[in-house]
């Protein structure tokens, strides 16, 4: 059952119960009051009748100057006083032997009851009052003219009972009407109150089905709007996470796409040319040499690529060996080994580094400096100059690799640290680049919690600056 149906039904049942019980109790109460009043009235009537009758008897006795009136005369007086009547109370007299002396109206079948009452009154009580069916019987023992009589009045109360029953029917009918009216109002109220819940329900379902950008309308300040608000917070965080996941997936897909392209290009040449060498008969010597050259060149490209890739993957896995090392010594070593390459390209390489100690992974640091300098050499033509400088700013170690090479267009700077991104693919390939060097450098710097900054002017050169904390023995950073 739906919540609105439950609320509606329970409220309706409770209200109906309350209304019904209250009205029935009230009705019962007023009925009892009316009955009591009737009873009192009947008693008064009974007393009034007998007192009157007694005074008439006394007056008559005095008038006749008798000591005691005989029973027959008393009976005549009864007839004179009460006569025969169709309306009003029924009156009856019984003599000492409980024989009916007079009644103003024939009664139906109440003989048994009257007999019982007569016996009761005879045994002790002065008078007796009994409600039988809808008729009230009042019997009293009276001493008149030195004899005992029994006086009975019966009052018909069916009018009150009829009235009560009538009221009950009417209350039932009114309750029905009330129930209808209340249920109509309740229905509207409950629906109105729970409507926001339905909106939340629909909104949540939509969000669950993937519409993560969707938000639920928040109205008012009740619990439901609070719920909507919290739902929205949840949806926002889900959306953020999904976006982040999608971005990661997209990045990964891009990386795989690029990787497969970068691997397939040399593979195509290697397979293709070796195929040609195999199937073609009588290939001229110079062609054969050319093809073999290409195969070897492309195989070397694959070697560079796989090497760089391995480096990138191991850096990602972060098995870093933290050591405090003397930086100037490290830089001199790298510069010396790179100087050979620089000289072969007719490039002047200068290296100057302040003495100091830095917490780092020596191999990764070497790779970083090597890659940056290698990039500089690739970008710089003959007669160019590369300047490596390192210095300390308090505990921050800063080093910069500056070249006088071709530079990087401003709009490309943001993208060159992406894996496989090359500003000039043809040129990079000729120089044996795989497009992974800067991606690797970024990873290494990130691992050392440093910053890598690239400034460049096309045609004039590039300066790559790296800043790393944890220099001059201020403790390891990987706490």
């Amino acid at each position, binding site marked *: 059952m739906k919540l609105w149906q439950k609320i509606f039904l329970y409220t309706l049942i409770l209200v109906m119960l309350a209304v019904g019980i209250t009205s029935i109790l009230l009705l019962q109460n007023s009925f009892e009051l009316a009955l009591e009043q009737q009873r009192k009235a009947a008693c008064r009537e009974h007393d009034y009748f007998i007192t009157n009758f007694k005074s008439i008897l006394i007056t008559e006795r005095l008038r006749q100057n008798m000591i005691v009136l005989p029973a027959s005369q008393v009976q005549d007086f009864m007839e004179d006083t009460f006569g025969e009547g169709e309306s009003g109370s029924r009156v009856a007299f019984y003599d000492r032997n409980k024989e009916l002396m007079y009644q103003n109206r024939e009664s139906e079948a109440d003989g048994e009851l009257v007999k019982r009452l007569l016996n009761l009154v005879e045994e002790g009580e002065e008078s007796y009052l009994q409600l039988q069916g809808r008729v009230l019987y009042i019997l009293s023992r009276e001493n008149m003219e030195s004899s005992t009589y029994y006086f009975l009045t019966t009052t018909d109360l069916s009018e009150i009972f009829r009235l009560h029953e009538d009221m009950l029917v009417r209350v039932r009918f009114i309750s029905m009407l009330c129930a209808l009216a209340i249920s109509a109002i309740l229905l509207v109220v409950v629906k109105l109150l729970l409507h926001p819940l339905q909106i939340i329900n629909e909104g949540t379902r939509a969000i669950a089905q993937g519409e993560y950008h969707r938000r639920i309308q928040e109205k008012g300040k009740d619990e439901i709007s609070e719920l909507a608000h919290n739902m929205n917070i949840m949806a926002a965080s889900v959306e953020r996470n999904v976006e982040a996941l999608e971005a990661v997936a997209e990045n990964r897909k891009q990386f795989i796409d690029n990787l497969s*392209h970068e691997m*397939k*290009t*040399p593979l195509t040449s290697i397979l*293709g040319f070796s195929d040609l060498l195999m199937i073609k008969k009588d290939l001229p010597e110079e062609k054969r040499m050319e093809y073999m050259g*290409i195969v070897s060149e492309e195989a070397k490209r694959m070697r560079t690529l796989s090497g760089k890739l391995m480096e990138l993957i191991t850096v990602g896995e972060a098995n870093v060996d933290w050591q405090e090392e003397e930086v100037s010594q490290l830089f001199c070593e790298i510069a010396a080994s790179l100087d050979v390459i620089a000289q072969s390209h007719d490039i002047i390489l200068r290296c100057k580094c302040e003495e100091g100690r830095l917490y780092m992974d020596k191999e990764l640091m070497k790779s970083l400096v090597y890659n940056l300098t290698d990039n500089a050499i690739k970008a710089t033509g003959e007669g160019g100059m590369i300047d490596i400088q390192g210095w300390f700013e308090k505990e921050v170690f800063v080093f910069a690799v500056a070249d006088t090479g071709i530079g990087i267009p401003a709009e490309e700077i943001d993208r060159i640290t992406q894996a496989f991104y090359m500003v000039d693919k*043809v040129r990079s390939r000729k120089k044996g680049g795989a497009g992974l060097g800067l991606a690797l450098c970024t990873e290494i710097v990130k691992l050392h919690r440093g910053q890598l900054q690239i400034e460049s002017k096309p045609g004039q050169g590039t300066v790559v600056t790296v800043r790393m904390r944890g220099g001059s023995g201020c403790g390891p950073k990987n706490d």
Partner: protein
Amino acid sequence: MIRILIVEDDENIAKLIEATVTIGGYEGVVCDNGAEAFERMEHEDFDLILLDVMLPDMSGFEIMRNRTSDTPVIFITARQELTDKVRGLRLGAEDYIVKPFEAMELLARIEVILRRVSKPETIYEYGNISINVEEHTCRQDGELVYLTPKEFEVLVFFIKHKDVAVSRDSLLGAVWGFDYEGETRTVDIHVQQLRKKLGLKQRLVTIPKLGYRLESVKS
């Protein structure tokens, strides 16, 4: 001579494709960027275009969408996802070759396309054998030699690629179609029949592990 435009940004692959089409007896024209390729496509006359999908300036798909000529195109790409393939073919490409590919596969595919779109040469001569494709006849020293249709096509393929080692797979692809799922035994039977019928035992040689080669007649 049939001219083929090769659009490929990697220098070595371009060289490879050029060398491959030369074996097939076509003239290859290399072009290493999309813009130039588009210009040449629009203004020059080629019989076939081999188009790399990933070019530095614009994608092969883009070129395909914008071009106005209806020269047949074969896409050459490193991406082998089905969606790319479907996209390429839907843009009107005749075929789709995934890198890395074999030289003979490329040649065979080129041949299938060319046979479909252009009128092939009708008469081939090989030593004392002359073949008329239109009449579907083969004569040796003027005498008619009866060949089944497939034997005939195999012979034509060999004559077109003299001095090239042809693998059973590529022969199967070129003659029976690339979706034919028969066995390479079929090729062996046809080659044996050809040898017997035309007395080519000496010149249609078996190359171990590779396939067959028809050696050119030294005059």
